[in-house]
């Protein structure tokens, strides 16, 4: 499939360079979102993007050509809840970081899923706090070196897909921001599905921070990062046939890639080689 139609570019504000580090994948997340939004048939005025604080909070603020609200650290879901209640006709999306949505803001994520508020939440998981200099967070893989875990992270990371599914979320996806396979189109299709879903939907982009996570963990460039992601992620179709060996940084196994609708669904795919 080729993307010759460039109408999706109308979702991105013209004329400004992005403020992310070189090799950061957040710019690509912006583009994938724009492409998927175009495919949903929505118009920019029907969409409202809410983000929190962190590098990931900048993916939409300033750059997405819709109404944008750049909120406080950890709280974008609560602002989005207020907006969605007043304007149920708007498509309200939340785009923010792993630290924002799933460490300081986990409480709000949990309750938004429980309430089944009709939001699409996109988490840009770069495995740590990028903006503040690369400290470990709730999603940092076991043994990873970060600014606050110089000996390796001793804590167990949070599996966000398992978390939201266990709370009753009926659409949760995990994909890398940069395609590690042949094409990004399955990712875009999954984003479209997430956006079109009735009820709370969750999407996790795996997009390791090259500056802080990559450099400290022997993958300072896109080539090495891609190898790492190829090792870390396993498509749900491939799980049955894999003989998954633990990868160096994800000692407890691999992360399943795909779209999941129930916890049982997820566990069935991940019981073999999945993160336990």
């Amino acid at each position: 499939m080729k993307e010759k139609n460039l109408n999706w570019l109308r979702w991105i504000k013209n004329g400004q360079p992005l403020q992310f580090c070189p090799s950061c994948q957040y710019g690509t997340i912006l583009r994938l979102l724009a492409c998927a939004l175009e495919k949903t048939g929505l118009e920019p005025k029907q969409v409202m993007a809410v983000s929190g604080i962190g590098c990931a909070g900048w993916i939409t603020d300033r750059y997405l050509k819709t109404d944008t609200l750049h909120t406080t650290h950890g709280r974008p879901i609560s602002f989005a809840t207020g907006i969605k209640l007043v304007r149920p006709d708007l498509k309200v999306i939340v785009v923010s970081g792993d630290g924002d949505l799933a460490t300081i803001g986990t409480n709000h994520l949990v309750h938004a899923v429980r309430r089944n508020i009709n939001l699409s939440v996109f988490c840009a998981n770069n495995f740590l706090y990028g903006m503040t200099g690369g400290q470990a967070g709730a999603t940092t893989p076991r043994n990873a070196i970060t600014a606050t875990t110089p000996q390796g992270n001793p804590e167990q990371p949070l599996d966000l897909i398992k978390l939201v599914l266990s709370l009753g979320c009926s659409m949760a996806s995990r994909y890398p921001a940069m395609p590690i396979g042949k094409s990004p189109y399955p990712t875009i299709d999954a984003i479209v599905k997430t956006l079109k879903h009735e009820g709370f939907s969750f999407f996790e982009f795996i997009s390791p921070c090259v500056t802080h996570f990559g450099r400290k963990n022997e993958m300072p460039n896109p080539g090495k990062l891609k190898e790492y992601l190829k090792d870390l992620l396993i498509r749900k179709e491939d799980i049955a046939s894999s003989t998954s060996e633990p990868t160096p940084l994800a000692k407890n196994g691999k992360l399943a890639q795909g779209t999941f609708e129930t916890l049982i669904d997820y566990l069935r795919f991940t019981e073999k080689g999945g993160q336990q």
Partner: protein
Amino acid sequence: MFGKLTTKENNEVVKLEINPKLCKQCGWCEQFCPKKVFGSRGEILNAEACSKCGLCQLLCPEGAILFGEQSKERQGTIQFPACNALRSNAGRPNLLRQVSREVSKFGLGWSIQRSLSEPGPYFISGNGACVRGALDAGCQFYAGYPITPASEIMQDIVKKFGQTSIGIFIQMEDEISSVGAIIGASQTGVKSMTATSGPGFSLMQENIGYAVMTDTPCVIINVQRAGPSTGQATRPAFGDLMQAIWGCHGDSPKIVLAPTNAQECYDLTIKAFNLAEMYLTPVIILTDETIAHLRERIEIPGEIRVFKRVVPIFGDGQELTVTGSTHYSNGLRAASDPKAQQDLLDRLKEKMENIGRHPIIDINCHPENKVVIISCGFTARSVAKAVYNLGLDNKIGTAVIKMLWPFPFKEIENAVPHRAKVIVPEMNQGQLIHLIREVCHDPIPLNQTDGLPIEPKTIQAAVKSCMEKMRQ
């Protein structure tokens, strides 16, 4: 290294171009291009191999690869809609006046509304009066979290919203998200409020500061109870005065109102919504457990003047950019520009100065006064009773401050005679007195922190001993 390349295949011309202003030489294109057209630093090595799949244009994080004919991406200057500028300039009276004249024909700006309840006398608590005031002012969104002694406000408003089917209610998971939700709702165009007490008010501070920064109208009622920490949940205090005025980090001025009885709970709640909408700012109403639970007679008028916001809201298709980071008047984030920071703070300060031109204070002073008692909240009623009991006609003056911020420095300075002694009774260890010291010489504190209201006789005793000392 960079540049244009044109490949020819079946006589079809394809342009492949890298914008050197945007390319950060990160090397992702080398990874994702299936035909290995790019090198590791974004250089085009092998244009002939290009199969025109367009992946590079889609995936390049910087949008630096221009492919095919649509090469216009990220060129030219950014155009931010004027509506952002209008938002951040509201609170400047000239602009407001000009705008409200234009919009009055659309039902925005000032209008006269009928009250929801039948006009006439009612016998209700301060909390109940706040709810009626909010509804009559047009509040349509409430998000909150239970806490004594404020919970009745939430319980009452959800019932009223149900009866009239005009409002949206949500019980949030904490006070942080309660303020988040009312800011979201408010930016989407509806009048919004929440209510809490000390512990919840402390949690709210960060998002209240966000509302100041983003010019978001909203009303927050703090029914004060005895602290610190959990303290005594069913006992009154006035210990949050400083926090209400200066609680958030950074200079973040906002309006603080303090009613003294149920009637004022009603009136000042309406005022709070009007000020919030006019000046685009959060307004905090400080009551306490005594006012909140004391049932009194109030009079509801038939017609109420309400103000409806005149600036753009979310969902209008205007591409509003709203951020709590420092921003220019067009809404664009300004991460480190000193001028942007200075301008923004100046503007917030100017907004407060404009509001301060209309102070809310009851002054009852006379040049002959020997003693002036300055108070706020429920304590003002004990002061009134004490003055009445003492019966010393011209000797005692009073000032009751109902808008605590912007603080009526000028009004107090002008009203209090130079030779008079000032007494400041408060249900805390001394907070209001710090502000009074700015304009009055050596005021006398009268603090009570046992979780009970200050009784008139306590104030009478203080006045007497003060007068005695003056005589000596």
